[in-house]
């Protein structure tokens, strides 16, 4: 029986989770747009952010509001270094490689994911820490529904950041250059755009956004070395659903997945809640691989 206040509660909570998914998915989508690869280490950017936020706050007793930008910076730094060290061969020479681009990217990012998870497992330990909440209000009443204070504030932060990123990509100087490179790397470089710099910015931005998602969710899902695996898989589902490379598509698909999971966990099965998205992913890849908003690619 669908009671109205329960459905409203599920809808709002689903939308909130969807906002965090969007932070992850936007970065993944940008990376796909500019390099045509899937970053299998995206969940580890999330994990880096969750740990940076939690450990810095615990070690120095800083306010969570100060550590939040630090977590973003940590993720951005990791993203930047990864691009510099490992992604350059994708577009700088190396065309004579027998190993094709897609395969190199899958192996290297998959290896990176394995490396970061096990490195953190050794250095920090396998046990979860609880991240500090942004506000000390435990529950806020929003009309007929109750939401935890941290969840609401974190969702607001996520929403602000998403809007800022969307504006940055749409209107800023670098945003336009990034879109140009995503459309046509060769054409963009002929027009004088520094494509290597655009790729580095995209990776840093994607790393920062995923890290921010990890930081904002760390009081809810305690950071452990493999905490990023599921958010990453969710964001793969989302970018396929929304169309690889499409930012509005990613945002919409994130919200849809969040709501779907929230209702599905109650009305279908709680134990299998993480499999819904995966099942949708396979269905979409079968019947509509270009996603909701993506364009079908053709080979000439």
């Amino acid at each position: 029986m669908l009671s109205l206040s329960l459905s409203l509660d599920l809808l709002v909570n689903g939308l909130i989770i969807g906002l965090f998914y969007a932070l992850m998915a936007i970065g993944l989508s940008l990376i796909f747009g500019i390099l045509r690869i899937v970053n299998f280490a995206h969940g580890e950017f999330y994990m880096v952010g969750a740990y940076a936020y939690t450990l810095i706050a615990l070690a120095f007793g800083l306010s969570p509001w100060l550590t939040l930008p630090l977590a973003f910076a940590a993720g951005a730094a990791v993203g930047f270094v990864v691009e510099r060290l490992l992604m350059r061969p994708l577009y700088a020479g190396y065309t004579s490689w027998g190993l094709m681009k897609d395969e190199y990217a899958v192996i290297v990012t998959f290896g990176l994911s394995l490396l970061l998870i096990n490195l953190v497992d050794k250095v920090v330990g396998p046990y979860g820490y609880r991240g500090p909440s942004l506000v000390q209000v435990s529950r806020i009443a929003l009309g007929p529904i109750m939401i935890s204070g941290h969840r609401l504030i974190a969702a607001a932060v996520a929403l602000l950041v998403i809007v800022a990123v969307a504006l940055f990509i749409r209107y800023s100087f670098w945003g336009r250059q990034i879109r140009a490179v995503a459309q046509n790397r060769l054409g963009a470089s002929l027009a004088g755009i520094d494509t290597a710099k655009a790729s580095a910015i995209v990776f840093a931005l994607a790393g920062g956004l995923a890290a921010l998602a990890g930081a904002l969710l760390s009081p809810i899902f305690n950071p452990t070395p493999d905490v990023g695996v599921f958010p990453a898989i969710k964001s793969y589902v989302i970018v396929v659903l929304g169309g690889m490379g499409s930012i509005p598509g990613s945002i919409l698909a994130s919200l849809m997945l969040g709501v779907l999971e929230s209702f599905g966990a109650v009305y279908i099965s709680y134990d299998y809640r993480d499999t819904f998205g995966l099942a949708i992913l396979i269905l979409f890849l079968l019947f509509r691989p270009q996603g909701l908003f993506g364009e079908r690619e053709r080979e000439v």
Partner: protein
Amino acid sequence: MRRHLTVGTRARARSELVYALAILAAVALAPLAVANDYWLGVLIVSMYFALLAAAWNLLAGYTGQFSLAPAAFGMIGAYATGLLSYHYAVPPLLGIPAAVAIVGLIGLTLGRVVMRLRGPYLALTTLSFGEIMRLVVSNSINFTRGDLGLNVPGILESRVGYYYLMLAVLLAVELGLFLLLRSRAGLYLQAIRDDEVAAASRGVRIVLWKTLAFALSAAISGLAGALYAHFAQLVSPELGLLSQTGLIVSMVVIGGMGTLVGPIGGAFLVYVASEFLRNVGGYQLIVFALFVIIFARFFREGLWGLLRRAIA
């Protein structure tokens, strides 16, 4: 041009087979030197991984298709024979072939679907397939006993018996792969890897051959899993973890992708090394992940490729 290519590929495959057989011969003699049950067990598990690595290499190294589900197929094979014997008292001698058939069929079905996809889409779909299967196995507690693990009956009395059983299967698979790769079908697969569009333009039915390669690779993984289940006598969803796939990928990438020797050598090297590293503090996955990145970035031909150049 084509004839030349064919002859070259075949001669190389033959020389590789000789080295692969040499490795297996050394493995066959190992029980004379290693009397210790623990290290025999390590070598048996290495052979389980060698089978998985050879299966993944058929797909990734020879056909150019990157699946991220090899560990999941191994897990399904292990559970197939395990569940058959647990619920229906099917003897292992029937359970193992049944497991191979089941996993092969699943591979054929999934392959029909995913082999129309390319590059990152294929990796994404197989990754999600593997994770779905693992979640289903670990959540269907009434049927599979979930994370508690499922008890599976053994088939042989002694470790040495299991050792030679695994070795015989590995040898058979390796010979089968050699024969397949030098056949017309093997050339089709390698043509697809080198240039899908060009292969299609010369009349190779790329979706058909890719699907068959996917199904065969799945069936070999299922066989590996089923044998492992009867050796370990306990299977758990952990067999399908992504880190297991990571281990398989690192064996093939470090050993040498697209060669007969690489995955087998890589499997023994990586797994035996991982036992040592585990004993000195559990650094195994860090080390292998680092090697995977370094090899993919700088030494694409793997250790075997480097060795071959040193010999020549």
